[in-house]
């Protein structure tokens, strides 16, 4: 038997509690659902597994809600530890897996539901957004289980899935994932939920207006078929040539720089980064630890990759030279290029799910996705007469030109880029406003309203 039944570590506890709270904020848990586990070497140098207690509230973890188990003696603590401990321990024995997490990623669960009788063999889920496609894989497995909670069947299947994939979907229940850190595991779950949300938004904006059918029942069948066909076609195209459908491969999650802060003394700027990062996360302008934001200095930039971050979790804050450097990823390269070609002081890039989905919108009677988003709400229409939507093949020069003119650009398959002349708060306002603009438009479409008729006439001039 392990001798460390109720030992605590302040650091571990804070980590679990903050990720637990973040998962509630991101709405991928109910009050008591899900569980988190990680391998940890204690002060005595022993490797143990830390796991959340069964029935604990992940948004309000207490120290005694963490169970410290020996990986060799997994039966200990079953009365307190998660009912899925066995699955977690097996996942944690996979090479490179230091953490594992299970959550009720509702959007993804909803996007994978079907109305066929069980037992079923659901098809894998194919994301249509670049984050999930590249970082969770082009086909995320979906498994149906007769007993979809803590069952031996799951303990066998899920670790096997996770040996091949970073995340796997439990039909009608949620997802399990592994990570090199607990934060990375959470990142996977957020990406997964976001991917499901985007697919559902795309479905919702396929309008009943074009569905003409004799009876109401027929109409809903036709609508369903239309939605399936649209997604099927999109997925086929993406799988065949992802580089043509996505702007670029988003940088991989970098655990090496996670806690780095290069300007700890700049209190005011740090506060601005923290506020903006938290808002991106809480308002879901980009999934956890995705997107980026920067403030330009004279020959350097203050750069927050993995920009979406709740207050309690944080993320890297780097001070980098403004000149291009060989190791720059594509995201950083674009920040630098924008600054090189403009006087802007702030840049933000978010993978805003509403914009990602709405960029695929095709007006009834047309055959190409829209090239501009025209706000139909009062606030949006005065802030932005129109917001350009480019294809994923947009050149850097064209993107920067559009940013000069519009301050905010949606790249289909590439997120949202925004610029500000002064502050992070200013640049944050753009994706935040855009989210509402897209929600109103998607809702209007969903309700069968004629978007063209709702758009202000003057917008056609911009």
């Amino acid at each position, binding site marked *: 038997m392990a001798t460390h039944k109720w030992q605590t570590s302040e650091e571990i506890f804070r980590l679990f509690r903050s990720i637990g709270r973040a998962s509630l904020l991101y709405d991928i848990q109910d009050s008591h659902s899900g569980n988190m586990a990680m391998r940890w070497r204690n002060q005595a140098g022993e490797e143990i597994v830390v796991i959340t207690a069964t029935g604990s509230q992940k948004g309000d973890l207490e120290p005694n809600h963490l169970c410290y188990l020996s990986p060799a003696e997994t039966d200990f603590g079953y009365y307190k530890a998660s009912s899925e401990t066995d699955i977690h321990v097996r996942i944690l024995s996979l090479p490179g897996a230091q953490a594992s997490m299970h959550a009720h990623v509702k959007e993804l669960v909803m996007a994978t539901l079907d109305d066929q009788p069980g037992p079923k063999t659901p098809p894998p889920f194919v994301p249509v957004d670049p984050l999930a496609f590249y970082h969770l894989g082009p086909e995320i497995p979906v498994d149906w289980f007769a007993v979809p909670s803590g069952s031996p069947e799951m303990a066998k299947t899920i670790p096997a899935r996770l040996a091949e994939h970073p995340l796997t979907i439990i039909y009608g229940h949620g997802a399990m994932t592994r990570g090199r850190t607990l934060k990375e595991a959470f990142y996977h779950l957020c990406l997964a939920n976001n991917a499901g949300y985007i697919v559902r938004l795309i479905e919702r904006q396929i309008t009943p207006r074009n569905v003409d059918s004799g009876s109401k029942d027929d109409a809903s069948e036709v609508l369903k078929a239309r939605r399936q066909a649209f997604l099927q076609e999109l997925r086929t195209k993406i799988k065949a040539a992802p580089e043509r459908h996505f702007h670029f491969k988003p940088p991989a999650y970098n655990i090496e720089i996670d806690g780095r802060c290069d*300007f700890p003394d*700049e209190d*005011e*700027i740090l*506060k*601005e980064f923290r506020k903006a990062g938290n808002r991106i996360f809480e308002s879901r302008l980009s999934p956890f630890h995705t997107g980026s934001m920067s*403030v*330009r*200095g*004279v*020959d350097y930039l*203050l750069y927050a990759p993995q920009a979406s971050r709740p207050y309690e979790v944080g993320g890297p804050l780097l001070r980098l030279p403004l000149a291009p450097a060989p190791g720059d990823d594509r995201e950083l390269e674009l920040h630098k290029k924008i600054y090189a070609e*403009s*006087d802007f*002081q702030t840049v933000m890039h978010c993978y805003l799910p509403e914009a990602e989905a709405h960029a695929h919108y095709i007006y009834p009677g047309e055959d190409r996705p829209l090239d501009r988003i025209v706000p139909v709400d009062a606030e949006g229409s*005065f802030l932005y*007469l129109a917001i350009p939507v480019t294809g994923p093949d947009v050149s850097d020069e064209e993107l920067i*030109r559009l940013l*000069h*003119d519009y*301050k905010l650009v949606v790249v289909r398959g590439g997120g949202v880029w925004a610029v*500000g*002349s*002064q*502050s992070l*708060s*200013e640049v*944050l*306002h753009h994706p935040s406003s855009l989210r509402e603009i897209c929600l109103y438009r998607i809702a209007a479409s969903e309700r069968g309203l004629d978007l063209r008729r709702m758009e202000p006439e*003057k917008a056609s*001039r*911009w």
Partner: protein
Amino acid sequence: MAVAGYHGRVLEVDLSSGDIRVRPLQAEDVLLYLGGRGLGTKLLYDRIDPTVDPLGPDNVIVIATSPLIGSQAPTAARGHMVYKSPLTGYIGTSNSGGAWAYGFKATGYDALAIRGRAPHPVFIDITPEKVEIRDAGHLWGKNTHETTDILTAESAPGNPCRALVIGPAGENLVRYAAVANERNRVYGRCGPGAVFGSKRLKAIRVRGKEKITIADEARYRAGLDQALYLMKQAPITKRLLRELGTSGLILLINLINMLPHRNFQDVEHDEEKLERVSGEYIARNYLEKAGSCYLCPIGCQRHTAVKGADGSVRRGEGPEYETAVLMGPVCDIYDMDAIIRANYLANELGLDTISFGGTVACVMELYERGYLTPEQTGGLELRFGRADLLEKLVELTAHRQGIGDLLAEGSYRLAERCGHPERAMHVKKLEIPGYDPRASYAQALGYMTSPTGACHLRGGYAVSLAFFGGTREIPRFSLLQSPIAIRNMQNTGILQDSLGICRFTGFAFSVDPWARIVSGLTGQDFSTARLEEIANRIASLERLFNLEAGLNPEEEDLLPARFAEVPIMAEGKPRAVTLESQLQMRRDYYRARGWNDDGRPGQEFLRHMKIQRRNNRI
């Protein structure tokens, strides 16, 4: 040239020879420099040797309008005047509301360049049909209101005369004399009134009905709708400025420890006393009505009245924030009656109230420290708080009588003559306005690098971002963020001045709607990227002018030592702008501008910016 929004004509007047001619406005100049401040700077640079005596006949005054003047764009009626400043010795650049610039454009010209010195006092009379240099003997010695009334008496219904005038301060070459239009709208800073006076130019009268064309009405309208909507949304442009005027900022600025006291020795005020110089107090006790400059939906003007001890009532305008602060708490004066009376008189005699207040505060400090004796002051006890002397000092200064002759030189020259130049709160000899630089690093850097010296309008109105910026609010004490922030603020100001629009529109939005309006109006690509490039070009040309005029950036792009050495309390910490901080921010600012680390634009950079020195001056 044929760019919509412009008439394509520059009027040139030589007061020495009486020569009057019209030159074509070069399309290249408007595409590179837009209008107003930018175009004015370019036209000045092409016409003047920057080393000339600013009060000599070779100084040139250029008044330039923008393509928006003549349109219905909100606030777009502001003119811009550019010249070599007799106060700073560098470029002088002043902007004013009122309808004069609108009237000038309606005479069919875009800009006016005046050189030489008339043999006797004159005024220039401009209509589309005729331009005349006329005798102003009957106007000389009259104040700005009297002169305006005489010259505009010939107004006809639907065809008003508008007059740009100086008062006795300009005639007497007070180094910070102003030029006024519509009685109380002034081109205040840097002493344009003295340049008028040195040319014996009392006034410029305009009358006309020439119209501009609009290239793309629909595009122009879309931008206009957006601008008007946003102005109605923002609380400062929607309410604060109309209800309380700019003085409505006084209590707010005090909240962020930025309101200077006793010649910038501290920022501590007795709250009760301060209330008595606030916009709220003015609104309750003096305000008769709010007013607007031509085409302005904001309306920050204060039409006020003040009662005398004998029950008589005097009416006038003001005070604005700067006047109330510089003639008020900066001199340790919290007597609104006295401030208002002095303000009315300063407007009538034609003085810049910021430089006047700053100079008086400097004198008070010198006097209290014993560096200025009662003999030198003509027996006046010039201590802080002497509200009873304010009006008298305005009078003495405008007429250069007694201590007024010294006050008329501005704080730097005055303090230097007393052997204590360190007591003058100035940058490049221009007095610091009512925002203490220790409470905002960006504002500090703005004063340091403004082409005209310590001016919140040319240096970047950082306080608008530090406190009222809304989404654009920036950190107040960031050495890292201030250089780019202030460069961008300065550029916004340059564009506002070059478009002929009011600074206060910036509380509602930046340049985006203007880019749409001006592109629609002219039919040219004045995208925000293009405007950004134009602003950078104008800033560099102003710099070039100053360098050629003898600017030494190393010594002059700095704050007075007080701000580096004596901290104030702000946000719970002692705050100073140490020399080290100033040097760091300044170097970064130069780099952000594309200049060398010594603050000079390099040849390659100038070529890249298409800034050319003409071989032959016009």
